[in-house]
């Protein structure tokens, strides 16, 4: 199944993009659909919808926007919504895209929060919550491993990772201070060098 989905992406140069004259309503509905169906991580759903189904973006544009989304603060999902909405319809496109992608999950979690308040202490619920919490630790760790494989280039990068963890968890520095100090060190280490 994933093969048939990646093939059209590879032929993207010959496929005409569909990005002109998309209406605000279509943008909102498409992001609302992604927001309501993207269980287990938004990125594959974004690609399936924006690149393969709607052809609003080429695969290359998608990867480029994703890398911008990852280096700016903010979640990938909402940053992507902003960039794609902006590309299609300027500021109003960006606003409806981000509203659409946030609406279903936030309403759902609002309701979950009310139920949790009432039933969170029941024995069956505490058991289930223990399992869920342990699983989400594994989930975050798997993201750490996958990102590390993809984007840590040299041994010193691992030192920056460890420095960041030690600063936050051991030295109890604020995330902001750590981000600025270790971030500046790492950016300077990777500074442009004359070839």
């Amino acid at each position, binding site marked *: 199944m994933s093969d048939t989905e990646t093939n059209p992406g590879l032929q993207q140069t010959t496929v005409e993009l569909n990005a002109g004259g998309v209406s605000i309503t279509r943008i909102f509905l498409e992001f609302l659909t*992604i*927001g309501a169906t*993207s*269980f*287990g*991580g*938004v990125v594959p759903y974004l690609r399936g919808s924006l690149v393969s189904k709607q052809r609003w973006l080429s695969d290359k544009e998608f990867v480029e*926007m994703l*890398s*911008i989304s*990852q*280096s*700016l603060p*903010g*979640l990938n*999902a*909402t*940053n992507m919504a*902003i*960039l794609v909405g*902006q590309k299609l319809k300027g500021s109003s496109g*960006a606003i409806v895209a981000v509203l659409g992608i*946030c609406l*279903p999950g936030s309403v759902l*979690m*609002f309701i*979950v*929060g*009310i139920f*949790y308040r009432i039933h*969170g202490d029941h024995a069956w619920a505490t*058991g289930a*919550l*223990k*399992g*869920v*919490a*342990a*699983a*989400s*630790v*594994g989930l*975050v760790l*798997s*993201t750490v*491993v996958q*990102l590390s494989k993809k*984007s*840590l280039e040299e041994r010193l990068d691992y030192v920056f990772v460890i420095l*960041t*963890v030690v600063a936050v*968890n051991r030295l109890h520095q604020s*995330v*902001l201070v750590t*981000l600025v100090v*270790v971030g500046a060190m*790492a950016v300077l280490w*990777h*500074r*442009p060098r004359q070839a």
Partner: protein
Amino acid sequence: MNQLPALARVFAYLSLLTVGGGMAAFPEMKTLTVDVHQWLTSSQLVHLYSVGQMAPGPNMMMIVPIGDWAGGLLGAILVLVAFFGPTALLTFMVGRWWTKLEMWPWRSSIQRGLAPVSIGLLLAGCFTLAKGAIFGLETAAIAVGVLLILLQTKINPALLVLGAAVVGMLSFD
């Protein structure tokens, strides 16, 4: 006491820390929402974050119940605006411009430098989460099991978290 100004302040600040993912802000979120403002307990925060992983959409919608509990419906909406507004505005303003900077040599330096720091922040958030989620052999086994399955297969993570809920319901008292 009216918590709305504090909710807006805290979540707008947390918003700017989410470099590389929402988890990067988790240690600070624990300090501010649990220790400083006492809007919820540490285990409630861990539960909300974890349950939130099963919801579709951006994976930090667990902030909505925090806003609701501390400030009602208005608090929930305010928290969303505070958490997503500043970064949305930043991305809107910087995104286009960033694309045009392709030839600027520092652009790649910034991206390569921020990568290890954002991974470190994610890992730090994970340790903070683990302190409230791993209590012994069974919970550790679930975490390691989920990690290994996700690294070996292409299964949907939300299904695994749901599976762990069932395992937990049946085996923990």
